[in-house]
């Protein structure tokens, strides 16, 4: 029990990265195997952690508490039912990213792998930190490797995109830093467990909530702070897009659940209409914009905005179904968007074009690819039997419970989602094979098959049997909502007095 399993999860990829840093450049294959090996071991550890995890309690487990900034901040990590899933998602996606670099990254492979591994460390750190300052540290530090991944290995407008990504996120985050330090002076601690028990003074909550919101809204991204995302996605190399879509965006959703709901219940209740409106706009607007895209990556990026709209909507319904749905939607979106970006990467590597009208009729040259692409398309639009369905369904159920009108409008988004995904699929895969260059391209090779199938299996499995996920999060979500309502009642009684 005393073995620091979470710290080793955080540290292991960094150790792998250090090893790569000091190795020779000559054989890039060795570097890849080292990176793959480290991240795979990390995946196994996280699975073992999930196995050890006790889902019957909502209190934090595997807690490590070390003095860090003396008398001020402790290095404190631990997990509950919500964070464990994101950790497993992170460790699952990273090895796949590393396998996928085969075809996409041609220059400075070793450095790319170092960046990916450090990124993995930081992302795991975000999901298991139990102190606001530690959380901020991991949350912000992720900017450095991502900036380099987009900037060095990106496409033609990479510099613009990298800067936009970095500065947008930084602006949001510095306000959160002000809020974190303020919390320290108001409550005397930044330890999340203690803060949960303390419940912050009502008069500060609104401003603090807004400061946290500014950071998470940019990262989610919510409309109207989403404009960095399409740029970053389009220019990032495939592996970068995958990390960005599958995990980085989830940090914000996770942050909303952990901090906005947990620490500022009164403010969350107050700002719920704001979140509803922004989420609905995100769902509808991003879906409509996605319909008009010529660029495949951009289309999927906008679909991410729409899907994250469902996530924020679900979180702020504050119902068991809504929050569970949001978490499952995030996990599912992590798998599906990763797969879709990889699918785009597959054809991009062959044709060097992301424009939809380059393609058409590739079902006749790449049948295996077309099957998998169809599976993920259907999962993205939320067909029953895929993980996407469970998430959206639960979110909408929660929304119906809370506000009928919001739920109806959000349901429109599901229809729009089907429209743009199916249209994308039709234009790329079906139709006449006009472009003669397409005739020469080969179907999936073994590594691509391996990556896509390993994403397809959990998507299908969770679609039919979401029990493992729901089991893990159920108690944590229930207690979160109970605590939320308890605090809310307490405040309303105080107001009455």
């Amino acid at each position, binding site marked *: 029990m005393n073995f620091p399993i979470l710290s080793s999860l955080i540290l292991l990829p960094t150790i792998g990265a250090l090893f790569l840093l000091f190795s020779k450049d000559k054989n890039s294959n060795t570097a890849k195997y080292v990176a793959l090996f480290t991240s795979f071991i990390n995946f196994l550890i996280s699975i073992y952690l999930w196995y050890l995890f006790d889902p019957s309690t909502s209190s934090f487990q595997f807690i490590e508490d070390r*003095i*860090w*900034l*003396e008398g001020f901040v402790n290095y404190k990590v631990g997990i509950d039912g919500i964070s464990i899933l994101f950790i497993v998602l992170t460790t699952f996606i990273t090895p796949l990213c590393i396998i996928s670099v085969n075809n996409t990254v041609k220059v400075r492979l070793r*450095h790319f792998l170092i960046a990916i591994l450090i990124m993995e460390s930081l992302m795991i750190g975000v999901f298991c930190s139990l102190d606001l*300052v530690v959380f*901020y*540290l991991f949350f*912000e*530090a992720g*900017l*450095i490797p991502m*900036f*380099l991944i987009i*900037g*060095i290995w990106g496409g033609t407008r*990479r*510099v613009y995109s*990298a*800067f936009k990504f*970095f*500065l947008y996120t*930084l*602006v949001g985050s*510095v*306000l959160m*830093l*002000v809020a974190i*330090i*303020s919390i*320290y*002076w108001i409550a005397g601690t930044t330890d999340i467990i203690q803060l949960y028990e303390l419940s912050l003074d009502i008069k500060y909550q609104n401003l603090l909530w807004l400061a946290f919101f500014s950071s998470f809204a940019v990262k989610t991204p919510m409309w109207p702070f989403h404009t960095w995302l399409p740029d970053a996605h389009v220019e990032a190399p495939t592996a970068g897009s995958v990390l960005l879509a599958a995990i980085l965006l989830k940090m914000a959703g996770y942050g909303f659940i952990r901090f906005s709901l947990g620490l500022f219940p009164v403010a969350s209740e107050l700002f719920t209409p704001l979140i509803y409106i922004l989420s609905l706009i995100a769902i509808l607007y991003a879906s409509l914009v996605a319909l008009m895209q010529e660029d495949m990556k951009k289309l999927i990026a906008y679909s991410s905005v729409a899907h994250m709209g469902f996530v924020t909507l679900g979180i702020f319904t504050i119902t068991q179904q809504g929050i569970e749905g949001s978490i499952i939607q995030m996990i599912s979106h992590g798998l599906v968007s990763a797969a879709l970006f990889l699918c785009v990467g597959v054809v991009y590597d062959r044709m060097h074009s992301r424009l939809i009208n380059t393609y058409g009729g590739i079902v006749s040259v790449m049948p295996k690819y077309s099957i998998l692409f169809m599976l993920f398309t259907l999962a993205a639009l939320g067909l029953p039997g895929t993980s996407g369905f469970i998430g959206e369904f639960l979110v909408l159920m929660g929304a119906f419970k809370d506000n009928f009108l919001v739920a109806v409008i959000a349901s429109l988004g599901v229809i729009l989602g089907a429209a743009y995904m199916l249209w994308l699929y039709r234009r790329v895969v079906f139709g006449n094979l006009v472009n003669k260059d397409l005739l020469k391209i080969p179907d999936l090779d073994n590594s691509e098959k391996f990556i896509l199938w390993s994403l397809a299996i959990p998507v299908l499995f969770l679609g039919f049997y979401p029990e493992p996920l729901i089991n893990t999060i159920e108690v944590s979500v229930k207690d979160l909502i109970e605590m939320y309502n308890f605090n809310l009642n307490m405040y309303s009684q105080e107001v009455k007095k």
Partner: protein
Amino acid sequence: MINLNFISAEIFISVSIMFLLILGVFKKNSSSLIHNLSIGLLLITGILILNNYPDKSLTFFANSYIIDTLSSLMKIFTVIGGALVLSISKKYLKISNIFLIEYPILILCSILGMMVMISSNDLIVFYIGLELQSLALYVLASFNRDQLKSSESGLKYFVLSALSSGLLLYGCSLIYGFSESTNFNIIGNALKSTHYGLTFGIVFILVGLAFKISAVPFHMWAPDVYEGSPTSVTLFFATVPKVAALTVFIRFLYVPFINMIDQWQPIIIFLSIASMIFGAIAAIGQNNLKRLVAYSSIGHIGYTLAGLSVATNEGIQASIIYISIYMVMNLGLFSCLFMMKRNDQFFETIEDLSGLSKNHPILSLSFLVILFSLAGIPPLAGFFAKFYIFKSVIEQSMYFLAIVGLLSTVIAAFYYLKIIKVIYFDKEKEKYDTDHSTWLKVSLAISTLLILLYFIFPSKIVEIVSSVTII
């Protein structure tokens, strides 16, 4: 009988200066010897200060000279800073043909001046220290006298600095006139009444001091002087005198002027905000790295002033931590600049860094770490420096200052990113030389590692600095 142990460092360094001057006169071609000797002597001075590290404050010479934890700590910073500057700039001086005996001796003189400044508890002693320091710095700025820019920067620095010294003196005379003493403690007790004359005196003194640390709007000299001076002197300007001037700032605000806090607090806050914003915005358009460092140092001084404005011990400690981390970052940054050399010619514009990461991966990695740290991105040391500052600022509920400060870090991040972009994203150019001196490599490695690994042991420096209490 005065116990001279505590001022043995000052005595030792004065004697060393005279000894080195005589040695330089009588022994031909002794530049190298004197250079190395000065480094050694500075280190011995550091040991002397450390040996006599006081546990309470002591005053000497009729209360005009003070030795306390603040002064000793800051003296150690200046001495170590001076020694490092000398040790990493040796090769640069040789190549630039300014490897003369006067150079290390002038640096020693200015360090002596700074030590007097740091320990002063009296307006006159303070002024003597300040002038000794400044005179040496004027000469250093124009040390490369064959170059037009260097002479120009020396002259510019001299004229503007003389003006600010004049203001400072005028302020001193006003203070003396209204409080009837030049001693800080006596002034502090006398300044309980708010008289307009005293307020004017404080303003003049603050203006003079703001000039010395190049806070906006008294920063005009900095970019030109930084650009024109030899790089090694720029490094010295950017680090060591800042430490000394900051100490004097602390001493002035919290000993003689402590009762006038309502008068000076808005001034400091204004200086701080103006410096942070101006430093961030003006640096964006710069192409010369030395000029850019000048603007970035203006911005960084803004953060240190933010720590001073809060009037708590934590604020002062945060400022000291900030300036020490800033010193390490600058040492690293300039070590990188010294390495940008091809066929005995140094390069100093941003374009010259283009694609550095392809040919010099380790050097670029250090650059990357240092620049991100300057921008204040976690988990690097620069983040913690800012973190402590804003922690103390927010403790006093000065949210406006905190938010403006943090937003200006975002603007500042832009120009640091621009350099990183050139290093990492652009096409490579010719290789630079790799025959650097061991000292240079070691200093770059140590400063990079300190910045990178700071987060593992963040409490050490806080522990050291927490002994400094002045209020």
